[in-house]
């Protein structure tokens, strides 16, 4: 890899609890500008909890999350989202009782003053995902799983994310749909969008990802590039194979 990109988000020594049970044990993670950073791990490894802690949805008990020169660990969730860290979760992806277009309109945010990159508009979203234009007046709840996933990503894009967080975008989807979502993510990457992607599907992630971290039992077990990961079968079989 040539030059090293600027850091967008840095997580340092994050601890999170659900009630009394300790979920994240000192997780550290770096996401760089314009890269796809993958967070791999099995079910229940702590991927979604980590993301929820970054987004302020699950309060972390200790640690730091640095974004745009500020520690956002205590910032309310809606401020984090409006400052550009926008998640797209795999469960309850969309608002089913609104139409596709209304879902997108809700995702819209005021452009931030320091906006340098592409500004996403509904027209641009429709260009990228023509299927949404076709279904714009339908109830979002009546879309198929794959279409809902696309809508979920599109809704997040409407907020013009500095950092787009995709939580298992391929979960429960057919291989054809997974391939098309992969293509869309590549387009986003080409647009210089920084992406944090959590996945169980190593094959899918390795096609897109630049950097990669493996999380297991709430701890980061591996950090590096996919190239090194492929040469290291033991890590893959220990932490990722089912």
């Amino acid at each position, binding site marked *: 890899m040539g030059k090293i990109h600027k850091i967008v988000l840095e997580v340092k020594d994050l601890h999170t609890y659900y009630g009394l049970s300790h979920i994240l044990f000192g997780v550290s993670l770096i996401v760089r500008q314009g890269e796809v950073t993958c967070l791999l791990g099995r079910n229940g490894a702590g991927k979604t909890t980590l993301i929820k802690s970054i*987004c*302020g*949805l699950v309060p972390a008990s200790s640690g730091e999350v640095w974004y745009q020169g500020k520690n956002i660990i205590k910032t*309310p*969730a*809606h401020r984090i*989202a*409006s400052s550009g860290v*926008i*998640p797209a*979760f795999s469960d*309850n992806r969309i*608002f*089913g*009782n*609104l139409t596709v277009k*209304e879902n997108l*309109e*809700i*995702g*819209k*945010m005021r452009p931030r003053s320091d906006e340098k990159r592409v500004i996403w508009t509904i027209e641009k979203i429709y260009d990228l995902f023509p299927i949404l234009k076709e279904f714009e*007046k339908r*109830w979002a*709840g009546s879309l198929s799983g794959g279409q809902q996933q696309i809508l979920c990503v599109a*809704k*997040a894009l409407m*907020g013009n994310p500095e950092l787009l967080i995709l939580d298992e975008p391929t979960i429960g989807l057919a291989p054809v749909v997974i391939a098309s979502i992969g293509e869309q993510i590549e387009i986003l990457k080409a647009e210089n969008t920084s992406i944090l992607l959590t996945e169980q599907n190593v094959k899918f992630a390795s096609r897109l990802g630049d950097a990669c971290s493996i999380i297991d039992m709430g701890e980061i077990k591996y950090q590096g590039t996919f190239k090194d990961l492929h040469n290291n079968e033991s890590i893959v079989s220990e932490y990722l194979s089912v």
Partner: protein
Amino acid sequence: MDKIRNLQAGTREWTWYVAVFVILMIVPFFGSIFWTNLLTEILIMGLAAMSVNLLLGFGGSLPFGHAAFFASGAYATALLIKETNLPFLAVLIIAPAMAAVVGAVFGIIITRLYEFYYAIVSAASCMVLWTLIRKVPILGGDTGITGVEIPELLSSIDAVYIFTAIVVFTVLICTKILLNSPFGWIQQAIRENPNRVTCTGSNVLRHRYIAFIISSFICGIAGMLFVLHTQSTFPSYAHWIKSGDFVMICILGGVNTFIGPMVGAAALIILQTYITSLTQHWLLFLGISICLLVIFMPSGIMGLTGHLPKKIQSFFKKSGHNQRG
């Protein structure tokens, strides 16, 4: 579809509104005083229930204290007319605004809560106001305020009715426009999943608070209209049982539709009027009929509108098959 409303009102829906409005406007010229009175009450109760449904059907909360805002609007109107020399038009604006102020105060706590806690605290705050109203001398204690003089122009039953209908329709249209804006979409999104709304950068707490104030303002308008209608106001307006009425009207009419509360109000009040004329034990029969309505029409009376035409269609299709066969 059982999903919430069709807010993108097509021309067909607007035609319906205009038609209903025109019919309502000519009622006083043909109907009896009895019907004019009944319709005035239906419109007012429907409006109050609609303010509840803004939070119940569209926001996913259960407000059990809207009687507080109904009473605030009513008492503010009565007091302003009796004790001050403010022009009538000013009263019409200040009275609902007072209800909104009360809503803004109560809402600080209530809108932070969800589900049962929301319902219980809103009912409790409503009872606080009920107690206050009975204890403060200027509010007339248990006897309330009677003999509120309204301007000549509105002194007849028909005039109050027409005024009510105009105000109610104006508020209905404004609410419809509001619900079909990003504000309304967020309100419905909160109903589904507040956390996800947070992820779109909206401040859920602030949004719920503003919606609560708007709702209490509308309920205040209903209270104000009721004083113009009856020229008196009583502490029972602030009792939580009144809030229960509003919620019941919503459920009866269908919480998942915009116009449901209006239909529910018509159903409840007409039912009430007819059953009371038949028997002394009207509450018993009213209760039973409401139980039946809720069991057999879980999505309210408006829930039928989607199914009924389809059922009729399929019935005719079937009989068509039989003929051919």
